[in-house]
């Protein structure tokens, strides 16, 4: 009951204390630290964890104030990185989760897609006071903040299970980039899988790996790991993709973020690969966790809030520093949904149209 009374006090003086907390807490540093500490953490998940840590620092007790603060912090975080797309998908999901769990305190879980398991703790009686129920949600989040990371890793395992059905024996799978999800999917498929009622034997497939010089280190690691697990891997340079396409049966790539129309934002070159696959009529699959889905809806390659500085015309007459742009460190491109056959997500395998529907249901 002390909580409720505190809440009343804070409501009377809504901004005192909370602001001081918000200012002293450096969300950007926290985000980068989390990413560094756990190399397996995805950007949206790191953003969510950073926000939870922030909640732990803030003393706010009212719902609306918190939602407001989370919004400010999210904006701060988004402003601090050059490419905020994946990150914003995480913060959007988190604020939506907060709103949903406060709307229906006891049984909010179902409506929030993949989040159903991370919702309300034990079954609890319906709470009349929204501030009290909010405190429950807050405490639950703080206690279980690490759960998000664990779940993210579990999601990768579930993708491997969902995706292996689509990797057939005696086929060649083309992939690129250093996606952890794809690496895990291919590695797991090459081992046997125990469904409980049936043990699926290892899939016998080959992997053709397109190596992007910019991502050479990540690619090397994935290739070495796959070869270690007994998967025959051939590497080709990006320039040989069209040439090699005839030997390929399927293309599987990872994604940084999944857009509202069921397209993907991924490392530069993915779009080229998708176009080539389409031209050769090879199915193009994307392995991505549901938490990467978001409201971003680019109409073309340049419809982003930031300039990547990839295209840069200049001649010897160009004055230094005037027209020369610097290319962004990890450039991305947008692959439209028309080029994508299906998504291997952690909850199911779905088409781009179904992704669009889920985004509307989950986040709008």
């Amino acid at each position, binding site marked *: 009951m002390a909580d409720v009374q505190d809440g009343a006090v804070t409501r009377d003086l809504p901004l005192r204390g909370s602001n001081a907390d918000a200012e002293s807490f450096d969300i950007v540093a926290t985000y980068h630290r989390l990413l560094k500490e756990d190399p397996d953490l995805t950007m949206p998940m790191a953003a969510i964890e950073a926000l939870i840590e922030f909640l732990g620092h803030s003393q706010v007790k009212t719902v609306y104030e918190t939602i407001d603060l989370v919004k400010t912090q999210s904006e701060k975080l988004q402003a601090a990185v050059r490419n905020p797309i994946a990150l914003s998908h995480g913060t959007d999901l988190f604020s939506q989760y907060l709103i949903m769990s406060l709307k229906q305190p006891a049984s909010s879980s179902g409506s929030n897609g993949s989040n159903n398991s991370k919702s309300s703790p034990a079954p609890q009686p319906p709470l009349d006071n929204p501030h009290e129920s909010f405190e429950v949600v807050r405490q639950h989040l703080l206690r279980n903040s690490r759960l998000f990371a664990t779940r993210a890793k579990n999601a990768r395992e579930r993708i491997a299970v969902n995706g292996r059905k689509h990797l057939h024996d005696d086929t060649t799978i083309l992939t690129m980039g250093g996606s952890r999800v794809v690496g895990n999917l291919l590695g797991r498929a090459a081992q046997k899988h125990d469904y409980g009622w049936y043990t699926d034997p290892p899939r016998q497939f080959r992997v053709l790996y397109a190596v992007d010089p910019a991502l050479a280190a990540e690619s090397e690691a994935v290739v070495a790991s796959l070869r270690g697990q007994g998967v025959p891997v051939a590497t080709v340079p990006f320039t040989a993709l069209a040439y090699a396409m005839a030997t390929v049966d399927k293309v599987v790539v990872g994604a940084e973020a999944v857009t*509202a129309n069921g397209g993907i934002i991924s490392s530069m070159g993915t779009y080229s690969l998708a176009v080539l696959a389409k031209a050769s009529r090879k199915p193009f699959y994307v392995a991505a966790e549901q938490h990467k889905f978001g409201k971003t*809806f680019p*109409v*073309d390659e340049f419809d982003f809030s930031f300039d990547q500085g990839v295209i840069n015309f200049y001649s010897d007459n160009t004055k230094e520093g005037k027209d020369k742009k610097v290319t962004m460190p990890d450039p991305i491109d947008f692959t439209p949904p028309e080029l994508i056959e299906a998504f291997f997500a952690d909850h199911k395998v779905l088409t781009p149209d179904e992704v*669009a529907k889920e985004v*509307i*249901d989950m986040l*709008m």
Partner: protein
Amino acid sequence: MSTEQNGAPAEAAPKPGEAPKETPKETPKEAATNQNEKASKDTKAGAEEKTGKAESKSTDAAGDKKLTGAELKAKAKAEKAARRAQQKTSKEVAKGEAAVSSSPGQLGPSAGEVKAKGKGKDGALAAAAGAGRPTLLKAPPSAVVTEQKIQIPECFSHLSMARRIPMTQADKDVHPSVLMLGQQMATFTIDESITRLKATLLAFRKIEYLTACRPMCFSMGNAIRWLKLQVSKIDMDASEEQAKKELCQAIDVFIAERITVADEYITEQGAKHIKDGDVVLTYGRNTLVEKAILYAHSTGTKFSVLIMDDPYERLGQQLAKTLTDEGIKVTYSGDFGGLRNHMRQATKVFFAAEAMFSNGAMYARAGTCDVAMLAHELGKKVIALCETINITERVATDSLTYNEIDPERSSAAAFRLMFDATPDKYISLLVTELGSVQARSAPDLLRKLEEFN
């Protein structure tokens, strides 16, 4: 009470009229005969039951509530039925059976539905929102009868047209401001779906006269359905004054949420898609598109605008003036001459939807589809702006099922249709106040909206 009985078939007819929206009408004639069959069946089974229900409802009300309210209701109901019957017979005489399918007087989306289900509530609406003017419904608008002078080919008789009702023929109880609005709608001074909706909401009490002036747009139908819902939510014991006050408040909130704020958000989101160096092509003039362009300009984006105009209504000139006044570089073309050349230079195409159908088709000024198809062919992105109130649950695969005839250009030999339907595949992005989606996600947004209610 005899009028009541006559009224019943007229009411039953619109209800089956909803069925064809799933099975597209091949020919209106076929649909019409179909409906006549259904209608007659309904007349036997449903109509009696319905009137019975409605009557019992109103008598119930009479028993419980103040006598005046119930009286008003019964009176309004009877009058409405009588008017409907008259409207129907007049149409039947003039046009034969084809008129039944969707009589021009009530093209409005949901017109049938609303009338069929809103029976008892209708009275309540008239009583509660009717500003104490039950007589409003009394005089059957004679204008509806005179309208038959305009001749259009039989196969297009399901389409409707704005009518200029001479001021002298209008019901004497119509408020002057509404009279003005009606005339503005009929003469297309107030033209866009959303502006008409706003004006209508503000003048909701005189809806009958307004729909007589120009057929309802889809958003007006949506809003009426919403208003009926609000009316049904009102406590029956509430006083008339109280009910009126609540309704007016609800209408104000509705306008603020679904139109004013929605427009602001859409403007901002739409403007975000305009980048430095873009050449934005648009067709005719629409307030939302104009706002989005002005907003993008105000944020410092450097771009130019290409206006393709509709030769029948050169509203683009107005847009060109507004934009050049703000210092935006504008290229203007009065018609589609050289459209392909202009389109090659364009980078993005902006439209605003008059309505969005549930299959993702966009209902907009005639000619929009041609521009969108060419944009698609040349690989340009088409961005449609639309408030969610303009999304209808109806489906259109062609431009003939739902349309309006230009009253200025209509004869038995030739006439001009005012709208067309652009299939979803020609639209890259639909910007609404709920978020940016694909055009074919329009029904998902509808579903989402129902969840909110």
